[in-house]
C-alpha cells in the first residue's frame, strides 16, 4: 500500500510517500521558521496562510519525484493535536484529494506520528517499549504495548521541554526556535560555572516540571547581564550549557525510572527535543548501565515532518481504518484515547 502523508499541525508543511513494501520513498518539508521568527513564536493565522499556499505545490513535487502520480492507494493527514486552522488545511486538502482519487483517507494523531518515527529507521525497536515524547508542546512518558496501545506514565505539569528550550533561548535573545541554538551554544560552555536544579527528580513519580528551571534561567541571565541587558557571549554559552545539562539530566533520570517501573529495556525518544545530541549521548550511557537501549529517528524526523504521518497512517490503513468524507480535526487530543489497531 502506497500512502501520501500530509503534516500541517503547526509551522511546518510536510509531505511524504510511504510504501508498505518498499518503505519510505521520499519526503518534502517547507518550514515556516522565517515567517514566525520575527514574532518570536508561531502566529497561528500566518501558519494557516502559509500551509494553504505551499501544500499543493509540495504534494505535486513529492508525487513526481517518487514516481507516484496515479499510484497512491490512500491519504493520511494529521488531524490533531495542533493549531485548528493549520490542521484544517491539511485535512481538507488531504480528504478531498483522496475523494478525487477514489481512495481511502485517515486522520493521524500527530504525537503517534512522532512516536512511530523511529520505526522508519533501519533496525527499528521492537514492541513493547517506553516512549519519551519531547517536543514543543509535549513532554510525556508513555508505555507502548503496540501501535495504539498507549498508557500515560507521566507528563509535564507545566512547560514542555522544547518550550523551555525556546523560552531560555529567548531570554538570551537567541533565534527562534531556540532548542538547536541553545544546543550549539552549550558546546562552547564551561561545565560547572553555573549549577541549575534538576526539578522533581528528588521525589518518586514520572511527572516533569520545567517552569522553575525557566525562572532560574531568567534570574541567572538577569544577574549576569551587562549594559545591553544580556550577559557576554561566553556567559551565555555557560548558561546554555548548565540549562541543557539540567533538562537532559532530568529527562534521563525519569526515563530510567520509567523503564524500571515498566520492567522494560527499550526506550524510544521522539519529538523535536529528541534531536538533541547531548540527550542521546547521556541516555546511551545511562541505559547501557541497566542493560537497556535507546532508539531515535534521524534528526530531520525528530521535528515535524510528513514521513511520520505517512508511516503512522499506513499502519492504521492496512488494518482497514478509514475516515468518512467529513473532515474532523481535534486540536486537543490525548494520546491514550486512540483506538487499538
Amino acid at each position, binding site marked *: 500500500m502506497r500512502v501520501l502523508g500530509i503534516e500541517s499541525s503547526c509551522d511546518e508543511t510536510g509531505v511524504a510517500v510511504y510504501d508498505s513494501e518498499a518503505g519510505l520513498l521520499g519526503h518534502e518539508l517547507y518550514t515556516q521558521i522565517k515567517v514566525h521568527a520575527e514574532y518570536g513564536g508561531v502566529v497561528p493565522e500566518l501558519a494557516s496562510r502559509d500551509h494553504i499556499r505551499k501544500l499543493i505545490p509540495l504534494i505535486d513535487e513529492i508525487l513526481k519525484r517518487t514516481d507516484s502520480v496515479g499510484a497512491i492507494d490512500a491519504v493520511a493527514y494529521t488531524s490533531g493535536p495542533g493549531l485548528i*486552522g493549520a490542521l*484544517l488545511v491539511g485535512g481538507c486538502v488531504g480528504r*478531498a484529494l483522496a*475523494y478525487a482519487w477514489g481512495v481511502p483517507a485517515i486522520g493521524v494523531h500527530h504525537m503517534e506520528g512522532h512516536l512511530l518515527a523511529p520505526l522508519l529507521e533501519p533496525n527499528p525497536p521492537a514492541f513493547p517499549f517506553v516512549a519519551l515524547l519531547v517536543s514543543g508542546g509535549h513532554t510525556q512518558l508513555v508505555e507502548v504495548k503496540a501501535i495504539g496501545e498507549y498508557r500515560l506514565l507521566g507528563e509535564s505539569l507545566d512547560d514542555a521541554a522544547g518550550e523551555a528550550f525556546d523560552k531560555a533561548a529567548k531570554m538570551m535573545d537567541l533565534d527562534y526556535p531556540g532548542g538547536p541554538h541553545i544546543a550549539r551554544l552549550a558546546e562552547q560552555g564551561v561545565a560547572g560555572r553555573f549549577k541549575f536544579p534538576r526539578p522533581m527528580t528528588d521525589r518518586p513519580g514520572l511527572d516533569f516540571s520545567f517552569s522553575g528551571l525557566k525562572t532560574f534561567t531568567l534570574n541567572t541571565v538577569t544577574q549576569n547581564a551587562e549594559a545591553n541587558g544580556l550577559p557576554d557571549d561566553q556567559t551565555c554559552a555557560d548558561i546554555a550549557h548548565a540549562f541543557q545539562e539540567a533538562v537532559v539530566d532530568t529527562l534521563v533520570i525519569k526515563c530510567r525510572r520509567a523503564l524500571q517501573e515498566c520492567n522494560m529495556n527499550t526506550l524510544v525518544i521522539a519529538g523535536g527535543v529528541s534531536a538533541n545530541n547531548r540527550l542521546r549521548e547521556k541516555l546511551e550511557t545511562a541505559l547501557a548501565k541497566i542493560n537497556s537501549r535507546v532508539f531515535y529517528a534521524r534528526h530531520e524526523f525528530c521535528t515535524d515532518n510528513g514521513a511520520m504521518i505517512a508511516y503512522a497512517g499506513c499502519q492504521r490503513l492496512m488494518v482497514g481504518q478509514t475516515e468518512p468524507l467529513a473532515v474532523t480535526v481535534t486540536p486537543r487530543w490525548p494520546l491514550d484515547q486512540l483506538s487499538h489497531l
Partner: protein
Amino acid sequence: MKILALDAATEVCSVAVWDGENVFERRSDIPKSHAQQLLPLVDEVLSAAATDLASIDAIAVTHGPGSFTGIRIGIGIAQGLSYGAKIPAIGVNTLEVMAQGYVNRHPSYNGYLVPALDARMAEVYWGVYRVENGILFEYKAAQVCAPENVTEYCEANLPSCYTALGHGWKVIATPAASVQVDPEWMPRASAIVQVAERQTIAQIETSAIAEPPLEPLYLRNEISWKKRQRIRPPNSL
C-alpha cells in the same frame, strides 16, 4: 460545460452543480462545521445531478472575503478536488456571489447592490455592484473598512434607493428608509455558477485557466501580533 461550485466563506456553506441546463444545490447552516459538511455535500449534489467528479469541467469556490478559516476550508477542498481530478479551479468573490444571488432571486431588479459582511474588529467587507437588465457589473471593488466609511460612500455616491445585503449591515448605521436592507442575505453556491461562468469564459478566452492560482482573498493582512524586540542581530550567536 459542467461546473461544481463551493462556498464556505461565511456562517453557512453550500455546494452546487450546474450541468449546463439545471442547477442542483445542497446547503447547510450548522455553524463551525463547514469542514465536516462540505465534502459530503459535494458527494450528495453530484449524485443529485446524476453526474460524477470526472465529468466536471471547472470548479469554482468563493475565495473571499469572509471568515479566514471558512475561506481556507472551501479553497482546501477545491484544491484537493482540482489537483486530484485534474479539473481547473477558479476563485470568485464572495460579495459578488451575494449580489448575483440577489439578481437570481429578483430577475427584474435594476440598480445598485451593496453586499457587506461583518469583518469583526469594527470593520466590514463590502463592495458595490450595479445591475442592468439582469446583468451584474462591479461598481466598487471589494474592500475592508470601518462601517462609517460605507455610510459616507453610499450617501455621497449612490441614488437613495439601493439594496443593502448581508450581515455587515448589522454593524453599518441603518440607511434611509428608501434603502432596502436584508441583513440575513447570505452567499450561496448556486449563484457562484453564473459568476464563475462569466469568469471562466473570460479566462478561457485569455487561456489563463491552465494552472489557476487558487489563492484566498483575505483583504485584511495586518496581524495584531507584536513583533519581537531584538538586542543582538538575528543569526549572530
